[in-house]
């Protein structure tokens, strides 16, 4: 194996590139781009299996959402394998996962959500004043704007109006959701 591949300096950059392509949906990251940027001295034939190995390791770690104990055990096993990784490389991979785990997990969660997500929320409260034709005075109204959208698609804006009664009714439903969440989060 080319000496450059055994090193660990460019590996951090390689893992970033792999994560961008595999998890964050970045389209233009080809193996040739990674090779020429990070391992220019290495031939494509040698680079390809190395890249596949690193991609496989990163995907295994992300797929299992490894905690640090699992990660340690997994990487140690990889260093002992024939054609595995060096302990320096294991250290780079470990550091990468610790720094990027949250972001990668978020991307994986987004990838598996096929319904619209909530992208934004804003609101204001208006006080309606007396009108010529109605005796109504001072009925406050809440106006809420929800921005929702599916992954990769344009947002849809939903503008909802609530009077005090409706606010109270919805608040009650939301507290039921909150209660359910608390029940779920309680240790068994």
């Amino acid at each position, binding site marked *: 194996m080319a000496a450059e591949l055994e090193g660990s300096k460019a590996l951090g950059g390689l893992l970033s590139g792999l994560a961008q392509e595999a998890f964050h949906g970045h389209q233009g990251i080809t193996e040739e781009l990674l090779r020429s940027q990070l391992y220019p001295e290495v031939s494509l034939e040698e680079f390809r299996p190395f890249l596949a190995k690193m991609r496989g390791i990163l995907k295994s770690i*992300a*797929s*299992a*959402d490894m905690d640090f104990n699992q990660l340690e055990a997994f990487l140690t096993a990889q260093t002992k394998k024939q054609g595995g990784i060096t302990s320096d490389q294991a250290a780079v991979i470990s550091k990468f996962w610790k720094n990027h785990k949250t972001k990668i997990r978020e991307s*994986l*969660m987004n*990838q*598996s*959500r096929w*319904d*619209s*997500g*909530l992208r934004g*929320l804003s*609101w204001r*409260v208006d*006080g309606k004043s007396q009108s010529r034709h109605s005796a109504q005075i*001072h009925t*406050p109204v*809440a*106006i*809420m*704007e*929800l*921005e*929702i959208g599916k992954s990769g698609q344009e947002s*849809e*804006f*939903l*503008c*909802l*109006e*609530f009077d*005090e009664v*409706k*606010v*109270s009714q*919805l*608040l009650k*439903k*939301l*507290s*039921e*959701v*909150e209660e*359910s*969440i608390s029940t*779920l*989060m309680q240790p068994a």
Partner: protein
Amino acid sequence: MEGCSEPRLDAKSELVDFQWKLGMAVSSDSCRSLKYPYVAVLLKVADHSGQVKNKCFEMTIPQFQNFYRQFKEIAAVIETV
């Protein structure tokens, strides 16, 4: 305005019904160990013509908690207006 992406704030709808579901995503083809809870919401909204439409979306737990907190603020403000 051509190409303007501003929301049409005059097109207000009324919330007719709010249904919710607390789900747990366990596993997927891209991640075997997802394990994240989420709140799925179905809104039935009626526009000014009375036509009712369904709108669905999902929130993560932190997103829901922000939504709930904001709504409590609305409730507090609307009482004082």
